[in-house]
């Protein structure tokens, strides 16, 4: 029984360490995403620049709803497409963000709930 409990404890610790590593890694990705968001997205999506054709939507609950502000499904693939290709008056970030940048940005947007 003691052995079982010891091995259980070890198992829990290993799982928690693994979760910590995964969690830390995804948290670091989201943190990098936040830096990219502040650099490339916040001025439009969190500011209020006068004279724009349309004020860009805030992205606070982007993934909380089933649909994006455009009406498209709220999926990673759709958000990636919007960032890369642009949408309406939103500029395309084509060739300016790496695949890792896009993953980090989406990881951050997923934390905005």
């Amino acid at each position: 029984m003691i052995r079982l409990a010891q091995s259980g404890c070890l198992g829990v610790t290993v799982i928690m360490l693994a979760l910590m590593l995964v969690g830390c890694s995804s948290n670091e990705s989201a943190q990098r995403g936040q830096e990219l968001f502040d650099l490339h997205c916040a001025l439009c999506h969190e500011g209020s620049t006068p004279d724009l054709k349309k004020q860009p939507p805030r992205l606070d609950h982007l993934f909380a709803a089933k649909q994006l502000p455009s009406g498209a499904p709220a999926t990673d693939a759709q958000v990636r497409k919007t960032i890369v290709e642009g949408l309406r008056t939103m500029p395309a970030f084509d060739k300016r963000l790496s695949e890792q940048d896009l993953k980090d940005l989406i990881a951050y947007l997923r934390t905005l709930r």
Partner: protein
Amino acid sequence: MLRCTARNRLISRGTIASAILIGILFATSCTGRAKKYPLRGNVLSKNPATNEITVKHEDIPGFMPAMTMPYKVKDPAVVQELQPGDVIAAEVVTANNGSDYWLEDVRITDQSARQSAKAAVAVHRLDVGEQVPNIPLTNQDGKSFRLGDFRGKALLITFIYTRCPMPTFCPRLSGQFAKIQGDLSKTPDEFAKTHLVTISFDPKYDTPPVLRKYGLAYLDDKPAGFSHWDFASTNPSDLRKLADAFGLEYFEEDNQISHTMDIVLISPEGKIVKYWATEWTTAELEDALRGQAKAGKTNERRQTQKRAG
């Protein structure tokens, strides 16, 4: 059994302690970031009249990516002291959600490039009253045209690139032109005597289909609007000639184009009437364009009367 339970409690306490320790480690290892707006860059030009300098700067985390843009400087004496080519460090101070910004605490960190930069910015901008350059352009439909084709109409020209992510730059310019387009459409006489042209800094990416898609977003998806507002590009060497003629600075770096801004008003006779490079309002642009359209109509009437007489 009891021993076993006691032992289990000890193990449970150990597990909880481990979890707390891991939690603390987790929290301390993955948090913490301060927002600052330090600027480092090269001074490309200065305008003591408006107290502004144009700076090619590095990324400003939390504010904007690497870019060339004009900045107001709080202390006019600093503008006097700075020269093109100076490498500076400064603080960007922002207000109103970043839409108002200026530089403070400007320090020159390197003056060694002063002379060469002076030579580099010696571009001759066409003076008011000079004829608009007749450089060939291609519009959103792939149709060729020249700025000289709009004789009889007052022309408002600006420069953008469709991937510009700076709301106070290209998206603002296009938003202002869209407002002017909409307002003018309510007065058919002036609408018929005016025209808008938006020219891309990025001919490699901004092909006619890209410009068409971009234009439609600003024309509420009504292609008829293109008859009054062209979205155009030209080859890189003609673009450079056109930009030099209008005193614009731009260069491409990492798929991003750093550029200064310019709006140019052309008279119905094809002559440069006015430039706006730093401060303007939509109403000011629209009034000036309407004013030129009216002046053009008056001149037209005089000429008709002369011919009849």
